[in-house]
């Protein structure tokens, strides 16, 4: 049991660590600052392995053996380019959660519930939850106050046409 827990823990640590590893999906300019017009420090070829240090809007601060700077977020994908191996495994994460809290999620205790294909094809309505849902709803005024408290200002921008 202790071994299993240790195994899970090490997996989680490994997952957390490798989640920060990414690779470039195109030739990528490394900038001194997270802005398009900032100085370009270097250029990384496609499939360069990088370590992600920080995020800022559409930018990620990265580090390689030879360079450190900011790249466009979407020039990166997480994981390992060579093996296309994906990092992280929330299956083990969930197992660790159970071990840590001593309880399991309510989806486990209800057993037959869950967003499985079978359940969606043979559905059962839940009118009581619909009433509950309605109680949580926010009106326009409430939403505006919420936005104001977060200093969220409306901006004008049109919907985008499909990519060519």
């Amino acid at each position, binding site marked *: 049991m202790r071994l299993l827990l240790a195994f899970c823990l090490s997996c989680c640590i490994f997952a*957390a660590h490798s989640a920060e590893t*990414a690779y470039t*999906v195109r030739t990528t300019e490394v900038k001194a600052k*997270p802005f*398009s017009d900032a100085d370009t420090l270097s250029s990384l070829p496609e499939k360069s392995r990088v370590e992600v240090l920080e995020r800022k*809007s*559409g*930018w990620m601060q990265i580090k390689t053996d030879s360079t450190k700077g900011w790249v466009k*977020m*979407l*020039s*990166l*994908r*997480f*994981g390992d380019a060579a093996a296309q191996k*994906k990092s*992280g*495994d*929330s*299956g083990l994460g*969930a197992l660790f*959660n159970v071990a840590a809290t001593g309880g399991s*999620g*309510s*989806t486990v205790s*209800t057993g037959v*519930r*869950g*967003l*499985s*294909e079978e*359940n*969606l*094809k043979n*559905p*059962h*309505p*839940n009118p009581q*939850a*619909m009433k*509950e849902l*309605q109680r*949580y*709803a*926010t009106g*326009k005024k*409430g*939403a505006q106050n*919420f*936005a104001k408290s*977060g*200093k*969220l*200002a*409306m*901006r004008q921008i*049109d919907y*985008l046409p*499909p*990519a060519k």
Partner: protein
Amino acid sequence: MNRKLITIVFLCSISSSALAFDFGNIDLGKALGVLQKTQQASTDIDEPKELELGAGIASNLLGAAPLLKNQRVQKYVNNVGMWLALQTERPDLPWQFGVLDDNDVNAFAAPGGYIFVTRGLLAQMRSEAELAGVLAHEMSHILRKHYLEAIKKGARTGLIAEFAGQALENRGADPAFQKLVGAGTEVYARGLDKDDEFEADRMGVVIATRAGYDPWGLPAVLQTLQGMNAQDSSLALLFKTHPALGERLNLLDRLMTGQFDEFEKQPDHAPRFMGVMGKTGILKR
């Protein structure tokens, strides 16, 4: 035999032209067009019916996964969602947002303004801007009536016409309604068209930006999910029902480059998001 046929055709043409004359030169083609339009109109689902259908589908979804028992989280998601809704062409729908207490990583929309996000998906997020991006993506399915179209495509025309033509009463016992609600719920297991998903990505990014958020929330979530283990069972339904995350990210990359630089200073409200989610045990990181 042939001569007989010619005679019949000839007689018919005379009689039909005579008819046309009798009815004051009605253009038959035009009349047929009007008839077709009327038939089409009878399969149009108006807003009250859209709401009703959506409520039935949402109720089914809640039958599969219950609401998370956390009023603060639920209220917070509704605040973010409603603020986003005010930036759209349908601000007056009775928008309702819910967090489903389920480990699966997914989000759903039902016609009429119902939007759900799972606890499992919330667990993968880092900020309010990311939540806003996901909610705005789902919202776009409702704005563009993607689910209604999917239901229409899958159901008999007769069934839609029956539902569309009926008065709004005693719906529980109405078999047409029940069948369409069932069909609507099944769309979650099957998924929408790829193009619907791409459109919802494009619109979601814009709606979140209009609401004052950092535009990169939605792509950040998609990027996180792409980095997860593809074999993870909590991703199975999402992967089955959506186009590949890599493809979605590539499209957003191409579309957003340069267009959103001026909005990059908008807040992502990561601290507010973390503050609400902090002690709930939702976040695994």
